[in-house]
């Protein structure tokens, strides 16, 4: 009892010191930013614009105010074909201008003639998608090297950090929910877990893109889960959808029930990945909005006191977001495993 309390106290002290450091830094950042904002006196501060700007995708990567990376634009239209150019062409001293027949309005590119443009640019999110992917490959090839080097021995270094997580995904997510056929789903589950986790953490960095809080990203991941579930569906899975009542009722009675049940079951196939898509998107985006809102309070009230309190609060929220980052990766992986488990379940 006594030993435990001493340990907790020392942990608490370390966390406290860390918090104190952050608290020292964060208000000064807020103060500095506030100072620069005050220069444009007539410009009224609009928090919703700031927040939307931070959360939405963009053709430029604004690392901080004044340091901007213009990302390449890749567009295709029926009239003009493929076109690749820098997004810097759309900017003329902070002013957004048309370029070469293209116009950009709130990061949405269209033709001056009004035609539709197919935009596959390397946007901020695509850039962070690349960073996330590169990070995954770098980190996990290092982990895999560890297994080659320390074959038959205890794990070391980065390998020993990730091994319990990999084991957790294998034993407590895959084996638990899928059963003996878990093996073929492991690569997807591991990749999706670490992709989302790393993406969430990257999104928390200052100046980074809100990758995993983007609906397109979560939609794609959810659709992959849906496709895997559908294509690995066994007899039992489809029977549950086509004939959910089974032998509990004569056919004549079931026909009428099925007029209602079939649409429900078919919608059910799509609501599962839909919930995956919305959950990840909403959780990550909400976290970003919350932190940005709290920090914006200082500018709305034009008060240093509010700024300090807001910074404390935003720091606590950031800590929570670190936890949410891994939690949401876990939830997405767990639910995917659950759906795969239902798909490969044998009749019993």
């Amino acid at each position, binding site marked *: 009892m006594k030993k435990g309390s001493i340990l907790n106290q020392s942990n608490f002290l370390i966390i406290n010191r860390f918090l104190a450091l952050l608290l020292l830094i964060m208000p000064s950042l807020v103060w500095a930013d506030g100072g620069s904002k005050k220069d444009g006196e007539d410009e009224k501060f609009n928090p919703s614009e700031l927040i939307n700007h931070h959360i939405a*995708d963009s053709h430029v990567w604004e690392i901080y105010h004044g340091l901007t990376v213009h990302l390449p634009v890749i567009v295709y239209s029926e009239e003009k074909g493929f076109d690749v150019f820098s997004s810097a062409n759309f900017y003329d001293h902070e002013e957004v201008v048309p370029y070469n027949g293209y116009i950009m309005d709130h990061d949405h590119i269209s033709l001056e003639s009004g035609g539709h443009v197919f935009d596959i640019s390397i946007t901020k*999110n695509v850039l962070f998608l*690349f960073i996330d*992917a590169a990070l995954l490959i770098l980190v996990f090839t290092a*982990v*895999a090297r560890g297994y080659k080097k320390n*074959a038959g021995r205890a794990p070391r270094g980065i390998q020993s950090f990730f091994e319990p997580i990999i084991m957790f995904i294998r034993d407590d997510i895959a084996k638990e929910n899928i059963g003996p056929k878990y093996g073929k789903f492991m690569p997807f589950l591991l*990749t999706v877990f670490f992709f989302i986790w790393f993406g969430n953490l990257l999104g928390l960095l200052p100046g980074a893109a809100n990758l995993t809080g983007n609906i*397109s*990203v979560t939609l794609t991941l959810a659709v992959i889960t849906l496709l895997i579930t559908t294509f690995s569906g066994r007899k039992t899975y489809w029977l549950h959808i086509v004939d959910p009542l089974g032998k509990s009722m004569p056919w004549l009675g079931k026909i009428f029930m099925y007029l209602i049940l079939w649409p429900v079951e078919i919608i059910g196939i799509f609501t599962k990945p839909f919930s995956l898509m919305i959950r990840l998107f909403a959780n990550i985006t909400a976290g970003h909005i919350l932190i940005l809102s709290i920090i914006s309070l200082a500018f709305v009230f034009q008060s240093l006191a509010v700024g300090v309190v807001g910074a404390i609060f935003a720091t606590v929220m950031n800590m929570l977001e670190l936890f949410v980052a891994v939690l949401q990766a876990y939830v997405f992986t767990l639910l995917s495993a659950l759906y795969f488990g239902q798909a490969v379940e044998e009749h019993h």
Partner: protein
Amino acid sequence: MALVTPDIGLIIWQLIVFLIVLFILRAFVWRPILSALKAREHQIEDSLRAADNAKEEMEQIKADNEYLLQEARIERDAILKEAKEESVHIIEHAKAETSDITSKMIQDARDAIEVEKKAALTEVKDLVAALSLEIAEKVLRENLSDDKSQKALVSKFIKDVKVN
């Protein structure tokens, strides 16, 4: 509304990049890691089982040793007992044989003495007879005139006998 509108460009990039990452990691990372983990688990399991087996074997060997020792003890006791019996038997046998031999030797000696005695007696008898005859002959031959001379003669003869 822009927040919840999927962007086709990002979807395409996400799909391509995620699938590439998935296939790279599957081939070069997850497979080796998962098989290494499995191999290590098997190894640990095997080692534990081997240790258990060794322990069991050890106990078996111990029991065997105990049994062998017990057996050896019993055998030793049996051998000792047999040897004792054998020695007693040998001693008794030797004793019996010795007494037989001695009694036979005594008997032989007795027999020999008896024979010698008989031979000696026969010789003495013969000698006495011969002497008697000689004495009688001499007495007769000397014409025994008087007792004195007879007596002297007799003692002279006896003297002669003794000398012989």
